[in-house]
């Protein structure tokens, strides 16, 4: 065993090294490590948050898509219904129109026939009177015999 003054020298060196390490080595290294740990933790948290956001967005998108599909189906359904309705309406209207046209044609025909009948009747009356005038070859008071004519005409 030879313990000697070296011990004192080493003690001083030890103390100086520890103090230097405590003042100038440990704090900056620890600060850097802790800062980076914080950064990594933040990054991990952010990525987790982003993942959650993405999931929510995906769910939302799926839901919206479903809703849109539903709406589209509804619209198509409505459109089909409406189309059917329109076709029915139009058919009905066309029927009505035809009936109306046919009816008005019929009325016109009837009126024309009646008019023609009336005209014919008048002409026949005149013709009968003229015929009678000629047959009788005599001045007959037209007015006095008009009741006979009238009766004739009515018989037509």
């Amino acid at each position, binding site marked *: *065993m*030879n*313990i*000697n*003054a*070296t*011990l*004192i*020298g*080493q*003690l001083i*060196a*030890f*103390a100086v*090294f*520890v103090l*230097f*390490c*405590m003042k*100038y*080595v*440990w704090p*900056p*290294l*620890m*600060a*850097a*490590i802790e*800062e*980076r740990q914080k*950064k990594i933790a933040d990054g991990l948290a952010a990525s987790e948050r982003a993942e959650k956001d993405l999931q929510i967005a995906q769910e939302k998108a799926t839901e919206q898509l479903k809703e849109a599909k539903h709406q589209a189906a509804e619209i198509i359904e409505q459109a089909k219904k409406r189309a059917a309705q329109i076709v029915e309406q139009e058919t009905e209207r066309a029927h009505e129109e035809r009936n109306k046209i046919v009816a008005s044609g019929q009325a016109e025909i009837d009126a024309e026939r009646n008019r023609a009948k009336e005209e014919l009747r008048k002409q026949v009356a005149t013709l009968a009177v003229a015929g009678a005038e000629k047959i009788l070859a005599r001045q007959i008071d037209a007015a006095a015999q008009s009741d006979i004519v009238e009766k004739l005409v009515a018989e037509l």
Partner: protein
Amino acid sequence: MASEITSTEYIRHHLTNAAMCNTENGIAFNKACSEAGFWVWHIDTLAWSIGLGFLFLMLFRSVAKKATTGVPGKMQAFVEMVVDFVDSNVKDTFHGKNKLIAPLALTIFVWVFLMNLMDLVPVDLLPWIAGQIGATGFGMDPHDVYMKVVPTTDLNMTFALAFGVFFLIIFYSIKVKGFGGFMKELTFQPFNHWAFIPVNFILEFVTLIAKPMSLALRLFGNLYAGELIFILIAMLGLWQLPLHFPWAVFHILVIVLQAFIFMMLTIVYLSMAHEDH
């Protein structure tokens, strides 16, 4: 090894520190210092340990100055790994708040590791170089140039570390518990009765003294034995080649383990000093 000296001389030469002292005729070295008593300086221990301490601090300081919080370089990553390793050990063991303990543990771990690492340098290399320098530069006999390159094989080194830790144990014991509390701990444990005070004191005092003693002697013993076996292997001539390698590989474990144990026990002792019963 040189053939003109005996194995005993060879071993003794390897296990002797380069000494320096102040005599009446001025500064003297080595054998001239045998009568100098306490005031002898082991210049090889001092130079190597302080040099390695500087190496450690410069290395870590340079990394600390440039430390980025972004992606670290390889050197920074390595230094941070060491720092983080020490820090997690300190946090696991020591639960109080103390700014000294973590840097202290880092210093002890890296410094002791570097000093132990000198054990892996071939035992003859550095002493031989020193001998050549001494012979050519100063005209000395190479056998009179002593150079023990592993500072932890010098009791002065290990006791200096242990006493530093011991001083801190006492300092924090008194700081945390007060002088009365510290004395109470020494005298009222393990038997809490006034009649047992002397018995308690003897037990606790031995426990207290055993802490630095075991710290210093464990490190010294392990490294001294390792060094001695390297020296013995180096004397085997050609046979040292197959033997040296496995012992060196095994010694890597010892080197790291002893540095780690010294650091761990320092943390444990200081955390015990902080505990208030």
